[in-house]
């Protein structure tokens, strides 16, 4: 499965489960993140997706009682060792991390069932171990105990490979703050230890520790002002923990049973729209000049005048053809118009014999088109997305069999399912009303089953780019994904798109295409050269992350 497909499925399920519990999702970055912000603490986790892979990273928690003092020391914006500015949304200082959360990996994810298995295991871990992690560490004496355990093992609290406190040198400032808040009897020893570490770092002159001395001195002024809130040997520890558990439960108790699988969409039954209720926009395209009654009668008069007097046979044939075309359009209207409109395809156009519905997106138009021949023969074309920027650049190129710049042609196409292709062939052989209706019914089913995903996926340059890359990896020709009259034209489209994505491996892909063209499509080499000369002008238009 593609990374984007896995991502969509996982986020859909996480959203459904976590959002009702107060979690916010941040999905715009490369790795989507979820954040829970409560009065006393904030939890953050993020995950990554690749083809066939889901990975979770550390789960991190900010304990507000602690971070208030760290902010007093470091100011509101910076995180030592990081070039990030705090926005208090998904970027904020964290106190403690759960490394085990990161060890939880999805393994190889090939199917929808694989994704569901991973998500369910994730929820098991999340509502079990993660909840426990949050509860345990919100009671700060537990963190002090862990610090002492690490000290005895001679592991640094914020160790890069094993540590549990967040931060570079600021992890030491956190440790002291927590120790002070807990009225830790070993506080002074810890203070001495940090003093020693600070001296060592000064000598070693590590770049990330250059502000340690300055910030430690500032912290030493703050520490005496911190009033202890806990005690290391409180007789009320269990009661305190009970309170914490009740507080955490609000945000860590699943609304639904975590093993519940998403329900399948109920199968929709086809009901043709009665002819009188079909939107007339499509039909009006057949004879645009016949929209008003007056012009309709004028048209009739002219038809009668010319065809009636000049060529009765030709007139008869034309009238018959028009009638057949009209019948087909009427069937398409009854079967598909309402379904297309319900999927947002509300603009109807015509280019010669191609009729097409479009749905605008941020990057161009989604297109559903069909061809109606003069004899009423219907052919359903593969749906597509027309990426405006790609087509603008394609217009600047010259190559054999270049089609006109028509809005009915997309950039990326979605292959029709085999039964639909076969029905297209049946209608091609015999365009009876019955066959056309069967083709329309199968198309209706296709729209109902696939168009939600088609619209979402094909509007996403990230998805399209991943598909292209996946095809490259599996040595499947790009041509199957792209529009073009000839195979090389499709490849040119792919190369233009990849350039506009600012793909890191553009040069490699370009070289590969050049090699293939030299062997098999010499006529198209000049177009490739044109692309080469235009490269400096072709700026990044689509945001993709590899």
């Amino acid at each position: 499965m593609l990374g984007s497909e896995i991502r969509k499925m996982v986020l859909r399920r996480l959203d459904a489960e976590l959002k009702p519990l107060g979690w916010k999702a941040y999905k715009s970055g490369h790795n989507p993140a979820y954040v829970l912000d409560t009065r006393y603490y904030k939890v953050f986790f993020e995950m990554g997706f690749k083809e066939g892979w889901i990975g979770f990273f550390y789960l991190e928690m900010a304990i507000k009682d602690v971070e208030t003092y760290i902010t007093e020391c470091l100011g509101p914006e910076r995180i030592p060792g990081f070039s990030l500015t705090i926005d208090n949304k998904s970027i904020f200082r964290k106190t403690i991390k759960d490394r085990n959360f990161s060890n939880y990996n999805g393994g190889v994810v090939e199917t929808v069932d694989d994704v569901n298995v991973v998500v369910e295991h994730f929820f098991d871990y999340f509502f079990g171990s993660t909840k426990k992690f949050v509860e345990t560490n919100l009671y700060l004496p537990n963190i002090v105990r862990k610090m002492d355990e690490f000290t005895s093992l001679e592991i640094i609290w914020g160790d890069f490979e094993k540590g549990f406190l967040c931060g570079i040198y600021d992890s030491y400032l956190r440790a002291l703050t927590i120790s002070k808040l807990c009225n830790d009897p070993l506080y002074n020893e810890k203070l001495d230890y940090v003093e020693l570490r600070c001296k060592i770092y000064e000598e070693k002159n590590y770049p990330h520790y250059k502000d340690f001395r300055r910030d430690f001195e500032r912290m030493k002024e703050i520490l005496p002002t911190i009033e202890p809130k806990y005690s290391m040997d409180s007789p009320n520890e269990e009661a305190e923990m009970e309170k914490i558990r009740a507080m955490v439960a609000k945000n860590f108790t699943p609304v639904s049973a975590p093993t519940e699988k998403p329900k399948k969409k109920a199968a929709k039954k086809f009901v043709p729209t009665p002819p009188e209720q079909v939107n007339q926009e499509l039909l009006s395209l057949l004879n645009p000049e016949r929209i008003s009654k007056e012009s309709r009668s004028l048209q009739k008069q002219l038809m009668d005048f010319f065809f009636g007097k000049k060529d009765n046979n030709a007139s008869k044939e034309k009238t018959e053809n028009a009638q057949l075309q009209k019948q087909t359009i009427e069937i398409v209207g009854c079967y598909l118009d309402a379904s297309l409109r319900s999927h947002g395809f509300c603009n109807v156009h015509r280019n010669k014999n191609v009729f097409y519905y479009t749905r605008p997106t941020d990057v161009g138009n989604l297109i559903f088109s069909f061809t109606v021949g003069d004899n009423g023969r219907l052919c359903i074309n593969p749906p597509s997305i027309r990426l405006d920027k790609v087509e603008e650049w394609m217009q600047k190129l010259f190559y054999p069999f270049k089609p006109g710049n028509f809005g009915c042609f997309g950039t990326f196409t979605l292959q029709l399912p085999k039964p639909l292709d076969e029905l297209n062939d049946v209608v091609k052989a015999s365009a009876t009303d019955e066959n056309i209706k069967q083709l329309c019914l199968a198309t209706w089913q296709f729209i109902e089953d696939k168009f939600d995903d088609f619209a979402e996926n094909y509007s996403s340059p990230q998805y399209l780019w991943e598909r292209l890359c996946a095809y490259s990896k599996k040595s499947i020709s790009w041509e199957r994904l792209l529009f073009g009259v000839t195979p090389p034209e499709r490849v040119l489209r792919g190369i233009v798109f990849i350039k506009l994505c600012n793909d890191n491996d553009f040069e490699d892909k370009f070289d590969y295409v050049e090699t293939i063209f030299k062997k098999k499509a010499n006529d198209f080499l000049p177009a490739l050269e044109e692309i080469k000369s235009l490269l400096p002008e072709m700026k990044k238009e689509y945001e993709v992350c590899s």
Partner: protein
Amino acid sequence: MLNKLSEATGNRLSVEELKQYQVFTEVPLVVNAEGGFMKADIVLLKASSDGEIIDVIVIENKLSKTTEFTARQKEGFYAIAKSKDGCEMTVHYTVKCEGVELSKGQTIKIGKDKIYRIHDHGESNGPIEIEKITDRIVNVKTH
């Protein structure tokens, strides 16, 4: 490969020392000063016992000696190769390796003598060659 890498460092790093490095793959890096983005094929990272990242080696995996760098790699490696005191780079998004993470936003410094190119001529059992990436190599390929 570690033998070859050790040789490429002029034996300044022994194979045993190299084994102590964490290996990350496909690390997204942004050049701090210029903002350019590159993805490093292999990043070897060593943290001190203090937890501080003290050494970073970047290895670019190429099919052959003549395979060109991508435009972004040229920018990134050129920035490192021409730097006097190492080039500060930021991890663009979190990556991990065997339970250890390089977090989004984390800054790392890469010295100009710590970037290498490896190629095996496209043969999995073929001879591996490692060479240091210099500003000359990147510059020649840039212009």
